[in-house]
């Protein structure tokens, strides 16, 4: 049993505790470096783990040495590690941006950030449904703290909505887990899969109901229609590095959907097989459509980016909903792309907003921002990325999904929505870019008499954006091996028997 499996979960908790205890002892400067070092170590830990599981081995870690299904297990398979890799890289660049001043003026930004990472890592690694609930709670509380970071009326309102809605979600999660435990008598996900597949007909209704209630919870987290309404306000009002980190938050919901509905309610689950099949694809396509309208309608850049996140959720879940090895693999490739791209966009929107003084990120013509050609070039590249134009990773992701959908019966719908959403995205972003950079006239007043004064971009802030964009470039250059990895991941997911045997040991009937 390799302790490497638990390391990416415990290390952020350790770092958070340390940062909390050192708060009064060490100056902010040192704590910043500490946090960045911790994030680098986290990336290394995850990379080591990735090497172990890339070949297809599933590592199981029984906490407290209690065997599954009685104790809690952490399970590292290709999917978990892919999510961890994306998360840790994202977190590093978000923090790199935050240490340029966003983290000041708050008492717990650094420990909260690490605790958020603790929650994310735990959620991606756990093999226990109730433990997943616990990590959802950690995520909820940590993200609430981060959302409110540095206050302001809009943030507090959006944060309150976020937390109230998510508490309702947690309650429903408990209902669903409780029901499953009462009927199937277990919490271990692999064991749940075994028990669910062998369910007697008189219990079918209850288990199906619980399974679909879980879907409602995950859909809320993922911001799937009609449960996406919390996202635009929350993401567009919070501070930039937090919004950037939150680029992964909707993916926690998407991950849970993928995990639970391939493992417990997957194709091999007998009477409860393909539980959300009829729901997911239409909802995902509708999410993309409604999200795109939001992108077109947005009057502020950050809100526009937030709606782009909604669109990407729709896209991602469309890929997952198609349910083939190729489509899920394509979706996982896209997941990494969209996380980095959305994060870069949030950071960039912040830089632009700071450069425009009182006008902030409103999509109105304003003064020329400092260093406009460089920021404009970054905007151009980021816009290409998120709207899925060639030659960057957004296009490749789109191409892979289309390629996977082409021989499926739902092809016309998938093609229609994806291509149209792409076009409208291009139109909206061309408009925004034109307004922000081309229609700019006159120089900004450095000392704004009324309200906020404009701050020019510095390399410290631009560097994380460039870093995230380079990650996307990496996704393009090594698209071959990376897409092979995600495809192998999908293959592993579609054979839940392997996972179940790895966790429960004995070869039970699946």
């Amino acid at each position: 049993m390799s302790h490497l499996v638990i390391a990416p979960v415990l290390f952020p908790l350790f770092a958070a505790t340390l940062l909390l205890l050192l708060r009064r002892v060490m100056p902010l400067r040192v704590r910043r470096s500490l946090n960045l070092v911790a994030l680098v170590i986290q990336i290394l830990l995850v990379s080591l783990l990735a090497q172990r599981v890339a070949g297809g081995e599933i590592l199981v870690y029984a906490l407290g040495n209690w065997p599954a299904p009685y104790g809690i297990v952490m399970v590292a398979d290709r999917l978990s590690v892919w999510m961890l890799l994306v998360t840790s890289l994202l977190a590093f660049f978000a923090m790199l941006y935050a240490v340029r001043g966003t983290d000041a003026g708050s008492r717990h930004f650094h420990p909260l950030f690490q605790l958020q990472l603790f929650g994310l890592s735990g959620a991606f690694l756990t093999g226990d449904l109730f433990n997943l609930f616990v990590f959802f709670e950690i995520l909820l509380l940590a993200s609430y703290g981060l959302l409110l970071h540095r206050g302001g009326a809009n943030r507090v309102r959006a944060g309150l909505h976020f937390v109230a809605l998510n508490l309702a979600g947690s309650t429903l999660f408990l209902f669903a887990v409780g029901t499953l435990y009462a009927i199937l008598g277990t919490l271990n996900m692999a064991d749940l899969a075994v028990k669910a597949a062998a369910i007697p007909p008189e219990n079918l209704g209850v288990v199906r109901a619980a399974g679909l209630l879980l879907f409602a919870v995950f859909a809320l987290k993922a911001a799937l229609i009609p449960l996406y309404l919390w996202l635009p306000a929350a993401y567009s009002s919070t501070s930039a590095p937090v919004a950037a980190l939150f680029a992964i938050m909707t993916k926690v919901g998407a991950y849970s959907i993928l995990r639970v509905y391939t493992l417990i309610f997957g194709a091999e689950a007998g009477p409860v097989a393909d539980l959300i099949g009829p729901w997911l694809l239409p909802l995902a396509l509708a999410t993309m459509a409604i999200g795109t309208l939001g992108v077109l309608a947005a009057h502020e850049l950050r809100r526009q980016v937030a709606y782009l996140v909604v669109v990407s959720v729709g896209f991602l879940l469309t890929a997952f909903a198609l349910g083939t090895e190729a489509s899920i693999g394509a979706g996982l490739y896209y997941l990494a792309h969209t996380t980095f791209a959305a994060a870069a966009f949030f950071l960039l929107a912040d830089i632009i907003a700071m450069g425009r003084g009182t006008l902030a990120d409103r999509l109105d013509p304003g003064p020329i921002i400092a260093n406009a050609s460089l920021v404009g070039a970054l905007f151009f590249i980021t816009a290409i990325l998120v709207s899925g134009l060639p030659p960057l990773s957004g296009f490749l992701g789109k191409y892979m999904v289309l390629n996977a959908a082409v021989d499926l019966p739902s092809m016309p719908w998938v093609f229609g929505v994806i291509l149209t959403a792409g076009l409208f995205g291009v139109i909206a972003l061309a408009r925004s870019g034109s307004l922000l950079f081309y229609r700019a006239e006159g120089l900004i007043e450095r000392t704004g008499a009324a309200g906020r004064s404009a701050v020019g971009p510095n390399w410290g802030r631009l560097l994380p954006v460039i870093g995230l964009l380079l990650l996307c470039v990496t996704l393009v250059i090594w698209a071959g091996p990376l897409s092979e990895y995600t495809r192998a991941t999908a293959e592993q997911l579609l054979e839940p028997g392997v996972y179940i045997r790895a966790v429960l040991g004995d070869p039970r009937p699946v």
Partner: protein
Amino acid sequence: MNLFFVVLIPFLGAGLAAWVSRFGRLQSAWMAGGVTLVALIALTPSLPAPFLGETLVQRIPWIPALGLDLVLRLDGLGLLFALMVLGMGLLVILYARYYLAERDCMGRFYGYLLLFMGSMLGIVLSENLILLLMFWELTSLSSFLLISYWQHREDARTGARMALAVTGLGGLAMLGGFVLLGEMVGSYDLSVVLANGELIRSDPLYTPMLVLILLGAFTKSAQFPFHFWLPHAMAAPTPVSAYLHSATLVKAGVFLLARLFPVLSGTSQWSILVIGAGLATLLIGAYFALFKHDIKGLLAYSTISHLGLITLLFGIGTPLAAVAGVFHIINHATFKASLFMAAGIIDHECGTRDMRRINGLWRYMPYTGTLAMVAAAAMAGVPLFNGFLSKEMFFGETVTFSANHTWDWLLPAAVVVAGIFAVAYSLRFIHDVFFNGDPIDLPKTPHEPPRWMKVPVEILVAICLLVGILPAFTVAPLLYVAATGVLQTAPPDYDLAIWHGVNAALIMSVIALIGGILIYAGRRPLFNLATKLEGLLDARAVFDGLLKGLLALAGAVTRILDTGSLQRMLLVFILSALTLGTVGFLGGGAPLTGDRDLLPADAVSLLVTIALIIVALWTVVLHRRRLTALIVMGALGLLVSLIFVKFSAPDLALTQLSVEVVTIVLLLLALYFLPQYSPAESSWPRRVRDIGVACLAGGGAAALTWSVLTRPYESIADYFLENSVPGGGGANVVNVILVDFRGFDTLGEISVLALAGLGIYAMLKDLRLPGPTCDARGRPWNWDMHPVIMAALTRLLLPLALLVSAFIFLRGHNLPGGGFIAGLITAIALIMQYLANGVEWTHVRMTSNLHPVIGAGLLIGLLTGLASLVFGYPFLTSAFTHVHWPVIGDFELASAIAFDLGVYLVVVGATLLILVHLGLMHHASHPGEQEPNHA
């Protein structure tokens, strides 16, 4: 691998060209020219291959699993286009160096131009269709940058965005089409695709695939009804227009028609769509060209018309027509580029492009006039100029094609009409600008441009003449290999001679020439008519309307959905959960009630249940009076703990009890700052709706509970019961589950608690709220804050309470208790000190810095877990032993107790942190008292 260099060099050069501009503006031009030459040199080793009948394919693997490699191809068609792109690029670079004004940034211009050149080369040299599409979209993006080069101008911005939107639409459609096409043949490689024409044409999805691909080609090549973006793209600097609208961007569409000609053509769908679009574009373009007063506008519409002509030729679908199409691509590129350059010179010299003002320039610039006349003659299709040759082939092909059809005169008649207009607008271009009286009110006095600015025009005009007079000795070999590349086999025999005797084509040419002259002569009434007809067929208005409609729709939908109302979000969530749960349950087809024998209802249970229901309802009724409702809710919690007692769960009862107390204190402190009464904010219908939804949700939860409780319960819990003592070393299974079996959950939950504490602390720290001075009925708050009796009592109670908490903590592993409950008891005892004695008094005696307590708790929990790693066991593996203490007796020591200590500390720390800071706010808000100096 040299083809990769051909494509890559312009991209690399783009950065270089932009960079060197800091050493002087002309450096960029030199760099751009040099880069283009290097690319041309990189192409030379491959030049002979197409002439030898070979198709070069060079491959670098990229994503082989998805059929997407970096793979380039050079055949006759690719060669022709690559030469045009590079050759025309050189001329345009030379021309632009003289065209751009001092204030225009050269680096940016040449950077964009080279980006575009690279993308264009990528299109024409791609072997893989998806790769082709990537370069295709790159041309859309780089042409967006080029068109919007003068970004301060409104028309440049809108023109660029329009071009991007329309070509973007086409690109995305094409992506769909290519994916379908790739699926049909199982590969995206052109070699495979081009060899499978039969398979593709017989595929059931042939028609949608064709439509999608044609959308791409038509939008790019400005075919009706997507032609409107092209005239607006004229806002670009003229060198850009000369490049994009002669040899490159708009030719990409017809290039694609040519590229896929062998596999897509030959069906009735192809004929109808391509001939239809081509013919409409040919006519509309020719008509509008005549009536444009802007020189570039005239050229733009004539470009549209000629693109229609080429499209029409490919639509006809015969090999000979394809040859004519390729030939006209070459000819159009040469004469149109030279005309754009001439127009740029005129604009440059006159300061305007309005043909109503520019007249009689012959006197000022006869040399430029001569060059323009040659090019315009080629455009009109006058014999001895290159345009004549391809136009005659075109006329001939329409006659041949129509011979077998009914209405056989219609197509030739239509193209003759287009020919007439072409002659008329060419004539107008020359006559209006160079003759027709004197210039009217020009901003500048025109004169001949600098020597080198005319060189590119001279070269192009020379080509027009040479090809026109001596076709067999100039263009013939290139045309032959290009046509071979299009058809993928040797083209049929054709004759490039100027004189074929008197045939239908010649007669049509003559009619066009004479008709054109007549129309131009009688242009006045036609112009009047055109002014009246303006606004009809305005595709731009349609586009603008669609865009506006889309934005309005987006705004409306988003406004309706995204209201930012929490109530709405919760309603949607509850309804979603209800729907999913109900559908899920009904889909199972199982009964609601299970087959478990129900326990008899005893009086106590019944009583407590009824009490619960009443209290719950009471809370709802009283919910406006917040404090009262809160107290009643407290009763609810107590009743629940009684139920736990009834069902023999003392741990749960203890926990519930202490949590209830802490929660109520917390809420009371918070409610102090809020109004005591909630106003009635909902209307009656809304309240009815909410009652309905609440009943449904409650009913749903009840049904779920019922269905669960009436079913037999078999779970892993038996394992816990069996292993609690032997494996976990504790008789209290609940506690062993918490700190051992599922200790990891607990570690997570104490993190949640810590987070809650930190979060609330951070929120309250800078918050200053005014506290009320009297309650809702106007009674002032009691100023006797710290009654003596209470103070004395709580001080006495403190050691007792701490002792109890220690007792509860220690016995937790075997008897009801544990760190969580003990922590809450300690917290309550300490809170009492605050309440009874005041914050300042307490702070003198106890630290208010609770973060280390929380941190220490987390750290202890974590380290206890990590300790087992030292012994080679997984995280949180427990160990226990029994020690015999004197007096006390046998005592069990379990590692889990250390973990429980962590739990205890976090609970104490977090609870106190929240309560103390709520209390402090309370304190600060109270008038008459000093704000405590709290760190």
